[in-house]
C-alpha cells in the first residue's frame, strides 16, 4: 500500500518534470518573445508542481530520500512518466499538440484528484489545477490558430496530431500501483476521465477545423508508467541530471 502510494506520487511527479523540462528547451528559441516567455512560464509551473510531488514522495520515505535524489539520481528505467511527456518537441505545432493533449488530460485528472482521500495529493491537485487551466487555454488557442490558419500551419498541426495521437491511449490505462489505490479513493480512476477528456479535445479540434481520430484500431504506445520508455528519455535525463551526477549534492 505504502509503496503503491510512493510509486503513484512519483508517476505524477515524473509527468510534470519531464514535460516541464521538454518545454524549457524552448526557452530562448520561441517563435517570438511573448511566446518564448509563455512557454517558459508553463515549464516553470510544471517543474514547480513536480517539486510538490517529489517532496511528498520523499516524505513518505526515510531521511535519506530527498526530492533532488528522486528527480536527479534515478535512471530512466525508474521513471514512471507518460511517454507523451518525453517525446521530442519537434516543431512548434508538435510541441503545442503535445501540450494541448497533455494539459487537457491534467485538467480532467486534477479535477478528480482534488477529491482524493490522500490530503496532500488533494492539496497539490488543487494548487496545480489553477495553473493547468491557463495551460489548457493557451495551448487550445494555439491549436485553433494553427489548424484554422494558413495551409502550411494546417499541414503541420495535422502531422503533429498523427505523431502525438498514439501516445494518448496510455493516459487512461492504469498501472498496477494506480489500480490498487482506487478502492480507498487515493488515486483517480483514469478510465473514468476519458469521456470528459474526449469531449474537451473534440470541441477544440472542431474549432481548429481538425477531425478527431475516431479510428479505434490506432496502435497505442504504452509502458511509461511502468518504466518502459522511448530512447528519448535517456537523452533527456542525461542533460537534466548532468549537474547532480557530475557534482553530487551540489546546491545553489
Amino acid at each position, binding site marked *: 500500500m505504502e509503496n503503491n502510494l510512493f510509486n503513484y506520487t512519483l508517476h505524477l511527479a515524473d509527468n510534470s518534470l519531464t514535460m516541464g523540462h521538454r518545454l524549457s528547451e524552448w526557452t530562448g528559441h520561441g517563435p517570438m518573445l*511573448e*511566446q518564448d*516567455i*509563455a512557454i*517558459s*512560464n*508553463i515549464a*516553470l*509551473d*510544471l*517543474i*514547480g*508542481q513536480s*517539486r*510538490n510531488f517529489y517532496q511528498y514522495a520523499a516524505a513518505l520515505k526515510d531521511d535519506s530520500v530527498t526530492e533532488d535524489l528522486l528527480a536527479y539520481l534515478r535512471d530512466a528505467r525508474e521513471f514512471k512518466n507518460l511517454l507523451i511527456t518525453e517525446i521530442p518537441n519537434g516543431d512548434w505545432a508538435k510541441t503545442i499538440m503535445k501540450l494541448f493533449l497533455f494539459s487537457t488530460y491534467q485538467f480532467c485528472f486534477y479535477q478528480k484528484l482534488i477529491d482524493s482521500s490522500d*490530503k*496532500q495529493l*488533494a*492539496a*497539490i491537485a*488543487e*494548487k*496545480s*489545477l*489553477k*495553473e493547468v*487551466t*491557463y495551460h489548457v*487555454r*493557451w495551448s487550445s488557442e494555439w491549436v485553433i490558430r494553427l489548424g484554422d490558419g494558413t495551409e502550411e500551419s494546417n499541414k503541420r498541426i495535422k502531422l503533429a496530431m498523427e505523431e502525438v495521437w498514439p501516445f494518448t491511449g496510455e493516459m487512461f490505462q492504469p498501472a498496477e500501483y494506480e489500480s490498487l489505490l482506487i478502492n480507498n479513493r487515493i488515486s483517480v480512476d483514469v478510465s473514468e476521465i476519458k469521456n470528459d477528456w474526449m469531449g474537451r479535445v473534440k470541441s477544440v479540434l472542431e474549432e481548429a477545423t481538425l477531425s478527431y481520430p475516431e479510428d479505434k484500431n490506432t496502435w497505442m504506445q504504452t509502458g511509461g508508467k511502468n518504466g518502459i520508455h522511448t530512447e528519448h528519455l535517456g537523452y533527456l535525463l542525461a542533460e537534466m541530471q548532468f549537474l547532480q551526477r557530475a557534482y553530487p549534492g551540489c546546491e545553489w
Partner: protein
Amino acid sequence: MEETKQNVTINKAWKLMEDVYDPEIPVLSIIDLGIVRDIQLSNDAIEIFITPTYSGCPVMDVISMNIRIALTENGFKKIKITQQLSPAWTTDWMIENGKEKLKAYGITPPIGKSFDKKYLEELKVECPHCHSLNTKLISQFGSTACKALYQCNDCLEPFDYFKCH
C-alpha cells in the same frame, strides 16, 4: 495573563511580516499578497504558515529567508516556516491596499473574483498609465507566471496585468 503575552508575541510577528516584501514586486509585502496564512506560537517557537502563489514561483525560498531574517533581527529565536498548499492561494486574498499599491507601481491589479470564472474570459483591463480601457492582450504570460502582458491602444505603452488566480 499567559495567553495575553502569547497574543502580543503573535501580533508582533504579524506586524513584522508587513515589512517582508516580494522580491519580484517590491511594492507588495507578503501581507498585501495574502501569502501569510497563519502564525502560531507553541513552546516559545513561532511558526509562520505561508502559501506559494504559483507552484513554480522561484521567490518562495527568498521570501522564507527574509521572514527568518526579520524575525531573528527582532529577537525571535525558534522559528519554523511551514509551506501550506491547501487552500490554494488566490488573488482574492490580495488586500485592497495591496491592489492600490500595485496600480501605482504600474501593474494593473486583478479584476473580479477568481471563482466567478471571469478570469478566463475577455476582460476590460485598464491601462495603469493613461487609464484607458482600450487595451489588448499580448500574451497570457508576462514577465512572471502571475502576470499577463497587455498593451494600451491609446498610449501604446505595454503593461503587466496581475492575473486572477
